């Protein structure tokens, strides 16, 4: 078999090898290359332990033999091939399974706590270890979305959006484990399906089935001391009571022709929304005007934005995860389609610390971990769920979360990101 002239390089200084060309058999696969690198590292550093590497040729992961990959990508075999190698991402390890009473509609985790919204009309706060800490009950209908606003020491602000057309802003003291509904945001004329807090944690935006986007203040204003919320109260009594002060929206963004399914902040000034009218729209949060429209061909279920690579990922009512450039001026161009799911993609989330990785959940009960450099196939399929996956999230600490219609919230430990997190 023919030999290929290759040159190996890496971003990670720990594993760097000499910058000299090597002659490698063209038929060699990832395992062979990995062992080559390990041999080189051992020769350089006696105390080196075996590390699994993954290899990238011109930004694409090597998944087959080197020769067939280069043929498929139509790379010339005459020149010296530049091969980048990174430490292989290990498979996410399942950690906890948190049982809910009903379907889990949404999940958001920060570095300490996990917040889930459920179809049993409550939201729940869990510790990262999977311990139920608090049940947030106050909505009269299904909780569709939840969001953390901010945390000052032990006091946290959190949001829950519900089918009952309201958004509740709660204040939770983790030490005393006290929860208080601070504001009830009314104004939507349909179920509130999505909320998102802005990066400065002062505002949040909500999208609803009534086709509207509304921007609210996320600051809990002090006012007359109110009765502390007692979560154990009968639900009926809660309903009759006023849950906190009623708050009205700062701004209403109208323009979508169908229900808004997902909303997020691109930065402090821009709100991006996806809708059932097959469009993704970018709005100016200050003036409320529409800035860009990206048109797809299917209903969008969820959006995610990565500030690292400045790409939007969308899950829609077909089998594809699509990547968009929200800043692009040249029309609605799909940068990349990630196709592996068999059902609607209901949830997508970019990795917070890795510019190439994202996770997606689908109605086919599978959560998939993607690296956009390997768009043909996902890195890992996580098929723990027994029913539809409705939400996924990803924490800075490398924890993957997914919840679905089987009432279970799964957490997975995923540690691969650190190696080139700084990239």
């Amino acid at each position, binding site marked *: 078999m023919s030999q290929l002239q290759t040159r190996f390089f890496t971003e990670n200084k720990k594993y760097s090898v000499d910058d000299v060309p090597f002659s490698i058999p063209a038929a060699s696969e990832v395992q062979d290359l990995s062992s080559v690198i390990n041999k080189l590292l051992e020769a350089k550093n006696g105390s080196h332990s075996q590390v699994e590497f993954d290899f990238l040729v011109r930004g694409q992961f090597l998944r087959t033999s080197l020769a067939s990959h280069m043929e498929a990508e139509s790379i010339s075999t005459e020149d010296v091939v530049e091969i980048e190698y990174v430490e292989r991402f290990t498979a996410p390890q399942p950690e906890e399974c948190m049982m809910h009473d009903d*379907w889990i509609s949404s999940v958001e985790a920060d570095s300490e706590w996990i917040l889930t919204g459920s*179809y049993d009309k409550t939201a729940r706060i869990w510790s990262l270890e999977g311990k139920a800490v608090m049940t947030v009950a106050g909505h009269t209908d*299904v909780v569709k979305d939840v969001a953390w606003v901010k945390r000052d020491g032990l006091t946290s602000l959190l949001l829950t959006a519900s089918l*009952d*057309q309201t958004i509740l802003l709660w204040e939770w003291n983790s030490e005393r484990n006290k929860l208080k509904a601070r504001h009830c945001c009314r104004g939507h*004329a*349909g*179920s509130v399906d999505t909320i998102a807090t802005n990066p400065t944690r002062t505002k949040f935006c909500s999208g609803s*089935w*009534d086709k509207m986007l509304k921007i609210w203040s996320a600051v809990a204003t002090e006012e007359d001391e109110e009765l502390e919320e007692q979560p154990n109260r009968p639900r009926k009594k809660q309903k009759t009571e006023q849950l906190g002060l009623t708050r009205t929206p700062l701004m209403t963004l109208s323009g979508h022709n*169908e*229900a808004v399914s997902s909303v997020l902040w691109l930065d402090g000034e821009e709100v991006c929304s996806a809708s*059932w009218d097959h469009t993704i729209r970018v709005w100016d949060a200050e003036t409320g005007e529409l800035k860009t429209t990206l048109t797809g*061909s299917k*209903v969008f*279920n969820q959006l995610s934005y990565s500030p690292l690579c400045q790409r939007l990922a969308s899950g829609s*009512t*077909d089998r594809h995860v699509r990547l968009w450039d929200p800043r692009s001026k040249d029309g609605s161009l799909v940068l990349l389609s990630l196709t592996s799911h068999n*059902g*609607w993609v209901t949830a997508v989330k970019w990795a917070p610390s890795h510019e190439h990785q994202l996770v997606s959940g689908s*109605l086919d009960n599978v959560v998939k971990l993607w690296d956009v450099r390997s768009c043909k196939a996902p890195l890992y399929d996580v098929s723990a769920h027994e029913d*539809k996956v*409705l939400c996924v999230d990803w924490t800075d600490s490398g924890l993957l979360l997914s919840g679905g*219609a089987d009432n279970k919230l799964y957490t997975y430990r995923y540690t691969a990101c650190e190696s080139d997190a700084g990239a």
Partner: protein
Amino acid sequence: MPTVNLEIQKKGTMSKAKEKSAKKRVAEEDDDQFPIFDKDIAEKENLEDEDDLSDSDESVFSGLEDSGSDSEEDGEGDEDGDDEDEDCAIISDEILKNDTVAETSAKPTATVKNTSKHQDEKLESAGKKNIKKGKGIVMEDGGEKGLTTTFQGLTTTLPADEYDQDTSDEEDVRNTVGNIPMEWYQDYPHIGYDLDGKKIFKPIRNKDELDEFLDKMENPDYWRTVHDKTTASDIRLSDEQVDLVHRLQKGQFGDASFNEYEPSVDFFTNEVMIHPVTNRPQDKRSFIPSLIEKQKVSKMVHAIKMGWIKPRKPKETTPQYYDLWAKEDPNAILGRHKMHVPAPKMRLPGHEESYNPPPEYLLTEEERLAWEQQDPEDRKLPFLPQKHSCLRAVPAFSRFIHERFERCLDLYLCPRQRKMRVNVNPEDLIPKLPKPKDLQPFPTTMSLVYRGHTSLVRSISASPTGQWLVSGSDDCTVRFWEVNTGRCLKTLEVGGAVKGVAWNPNPAVCLVAVCFESTVLLLNPALGDRLVVGATDQLITSYEPPEEDKEQAVTWALSEGPEHDKGHRLTLTHPKGVKQVVWHGKGDYLSSVMPDNTSNLQVLIHQVSKRRTQNPFRKNKGLVQCVSFHPLRPYFFVATQRCVRVYNLIKQELTKKLTANCKWISSMAIHPGGDNLICGSYDCRLAWFDLDLSTKPYKMLRHHKKALRGVAYHKHYPLFASGADDGSVIVCHGMVYNDLLQNPLIVPVKVLRGHQITHDLGVLDVTFHPTQPWVFSSGADATIRLFT
């Protein structure tokens, strides 16, 4: 010219001119021609030669100028020859001498003018000669003849010799008067002179007629007796002579011994011989290239160079055919001969024609009588089947002429109509439909399954916003589903198997009509906008009963207490079982169907805001299957088993009656434009009506294998769907154009499968999502499926 070129070499003649040698050759030829003659005729020959010589001189040298003296010499020479004619041996020498004399005397300067003179002299000399000889010359006559013949041509044979041998001529010699009329001697006692010059006297007594007769009677040789005029005597012919006469009369040769069929011997063989006939060496000139030919060739070469001579055009090898009848008009009288119409075929004989037919073909006595009494035209068979013991016993076919005649009549009178067979490619008959790929979007895959019901789901309906779906099932529940997740949000128990559900199409009203048993229930599901829910409740409670309470067909009852909490708002109790409930587009009116074949109370129209019920029909027009409101105009569609009637609600009259061409209509849907309508039927058909076009279906689609249960139009997209008992939903592209001239375009685009067939029932209802190109189907397998 002589054919044989034998030359006799002679000294002294070598220098003579060619003409002379030619003449010599003539003489030679004469000699050569008669090598078979005997020497005893040499005398005659000699005579001949003399004559010949003169003749030949004359003929050959006819152009000689001065031959006067010469000819006289010739004459003398002749006489010399006459004298010497005794000796044969000398003859040849004489001839040679004569030849030389003639040759020497001949002078080859001749003019045509003197020829006659020379001839005259010649004749004179001949005359003198005859006179000199006088009557004593025996052969004068023959000689003259010979002369004449030789005059005619040198090449002819000499008849004189024949006369020499002819013995019959010798008889004539008895009388020397010659060939004169014998009447001249009538008055004389003699009849002529014999050879000695003595008178030949006539017989003393002439025979009279009586003698003649007696002679005839008595003389046995009379038949062979010939009267000789010249001697006036009767000659009795000998047997040989009689035989000769007979032979001549028969046209045979006189000589009996002559073999006329002797084998012929070719003088020259017909085969090509390797040696030349002559031994003459080839001329020198034959070895010298001809200058003339060279000149000719060079001329031709020059002409070719100058292009005056052109090479022959190559012969066209392709045969030149042409269609003789190419320009013939097929409609012309002759043209139809080409239109061959085959003659009607004769019926092949069957068993009844057999000589020994099976007994069932034989007629019984009554049948035979009936057959005989029938007119020949009415008879089924033109003959009586007859049984014969063996083929040998079969008599002659008595109807042969009759049958042939009828056959001729058939051929003559048969309708000779040409069958016009159209050759069409079957592919061309298929209308050119756009590809389904170009007609997207339409539902293609099953996305969600709504599970929860425990029995077959009869009816589904989507909320006007598209967020919710309501379904009614035989498990006596009504379920409300969240469309995008498949979550069942609410389950309501009702008192019977739910036959129909209908979400109020007005987005400002949140009401769902449910029919089960004989009840129509109006529910407020409390889904969607709180304000709308509240407004709906307000609308229902704000009803104020009118002063005079009219008797109505149904009883309206307001729900209270726990039922109200469950969502029940109004209960309409019908007198009969309700099968279908349908809303008007504005959401205030709804209609319920109570199929009943016996009364006119089948369809009721209710007004919710006034809680009023009307029975629009006075007559029963058949079992009502389903009803529908026109989406825009005040029309009302009522589908019975076979047809759909369109009523104008304001004028209260029948506008149209559509015939569906199917056995039993099961379902009906109106296009949102209002001008088109589809009907599903239990006999697997879907009929599309264009109301502007006709009362007959514009298209019949037979895509389903089993009975159709539900049909639906999409509100915005040009789609319609049908669900059937075969468990499949077929989605069709049904484009309706604003242009009235353009007919709707109907293209089947997708067959959606997913439902399991339970109890022989597949899909029971289909409905489209109000905003997305999605279709819901409910099936007998207790599931609802969403196809996107």
